[in-house]
């Protein structure tokens, strides 16, 4: 009876002890498990954000790389066209001379810019030069005598130039032209635009564009085209045209035709040069951004791996310390 009682007590104690130890284990493990879960959650959040970032950077890198390839192949064909078109303006420049300092009462500025962005600083350069040229002409006229009669007009080509110049020179914009390179630049197209320019009845037209020098270099350039009257005046002042003999009643008509043709050819060349510069500038800009995206991706990968490693180490430490706490 007594033995039975003792056995029963022992069994009771044992079960109670087991329960006690179980509850102890639960108590000690509870915070650890919670901490582990918390650590896992934070790891998930931080690495997830980095992972998403890495994915987006990698995608952008792919896009910039593709854009670079496209720009490079477009540049190659544009370069051929540009170099071919130089032959058409060179004789006219030799004949009539480049007269950037020519004065007139009606000055037209034609900044040639691109329609699309992501092509480096070429559009900003053209706009900067336009502002400077307008200011220089204004100052020149103010120093001279015909300050009151002077009129400066802008015919902006390209969307990017329009959005930049309409901010501060809105009132002097005469017209805007865009999408000239959408299909392709042709001489009839340049002629059609030149005829629109003729409607301004300019004295001097200054075409501002980026001259294509090489794939990594574009030079902002101002090409000046004079009206027939201004040409006549420049001939009197001893320009290059005076070396040729132009006689008879056709002289005025001939000069008029020449001036028109010069405007169209200069515009044609300038459009091609600027298009080529745009492509080459876009190519180098995209090359740089691809490089930068690669660098960024490297940094992000490093951060990602470091946080992953750190959280794994923390977990291991926690597990081991938990286990040693149990064992001890």
């Amino acid at each position, binding site marked *: 009876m007594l033995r039975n009682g003792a056995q029963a007590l022992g069994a009771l104690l044992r079960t109670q002890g087991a329960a006690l130890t179980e509850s102890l284990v639960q108590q000690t493990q509870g915070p650890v498990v919670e901490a582990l879960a918390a650590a896992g959650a934070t790891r998930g959040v931080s690495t997830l954000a980095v992972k998403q970032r890495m994915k987006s950077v990698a995608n952008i890198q792919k896009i910039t790389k593709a854009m670079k390839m496209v720009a490079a192949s477009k540049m190659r064909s544009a370069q051929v066209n540009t170099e071919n078109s130089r032959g058409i303006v060179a004789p006219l420049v030799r004949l009539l001379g480049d007269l950037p300092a020519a004065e007139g009462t009606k000055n037209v500025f034609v900044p040639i810019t691109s329609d699309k962005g992501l092509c480096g600083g070429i559009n900003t350069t053209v706009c900067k030069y336009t502002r400077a040229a307008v200011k220089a002409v204004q100052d020149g006229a103010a120093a001279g005598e015909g300050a009151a009669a002077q009129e400066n007009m802008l015919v902006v080509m390209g969307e990017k130039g329009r959005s930049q110049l309409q901010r501060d020179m809105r009132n002097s914009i005469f017209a805007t032209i865009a999408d000239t390179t959408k299909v392709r630049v042709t001489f*009839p197209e340049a002629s059609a635009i030149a005829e629109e320019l003729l409607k301004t009845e300019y004295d001097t037209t200054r075409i501002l564009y980026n001259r294509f020098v090489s794939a990594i270099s574009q030079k902002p350039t101002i090409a000046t085209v004079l009206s027939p009257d201004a040409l006549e005046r420049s001939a009197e002042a001893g320009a290059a045209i005076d070396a040729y003999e132009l006689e008879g009643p056709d002289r005025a008509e001939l000069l008029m035709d020449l001036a028109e043709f010069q405007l169209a050819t200069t515009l044609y060349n300038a459009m091609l040069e600027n298009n080529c510069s745009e492509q080459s500038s876009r190519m180098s800009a995209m090359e740089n951004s691809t490089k930068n995206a690669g660098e960024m991706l490297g940094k992000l990968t490093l951060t990602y791996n470091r946080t992953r490693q750190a959280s794994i180490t923390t977990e291991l430490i926690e597990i081991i310390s938990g286990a040693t706490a149990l064992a001890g």
Partner: protein
Amino acid sequence: MSSSAAASAYWRVAGMTYLKYANLCADMVRAALKEPLKGKAKVRETIYFRQSLWKDGVPQKQVITDITEGTAGKLS
């Protein structure tokens, strides 16, 4: 010289600029080409651009000039 002077007077009297005259002549020459060359030359006739005149700092109506299938004598 005298013949060209007479011709120039002729088209100028009709109200054409030199550029219109020159491009019309070029179109005629292109139209006279035979086939393998004609197709190649035809793409050099395309004109496409958008323009809008501005008045008092506000753009007016936008005009699209689109002669992508070539002028072939349509340029008045």
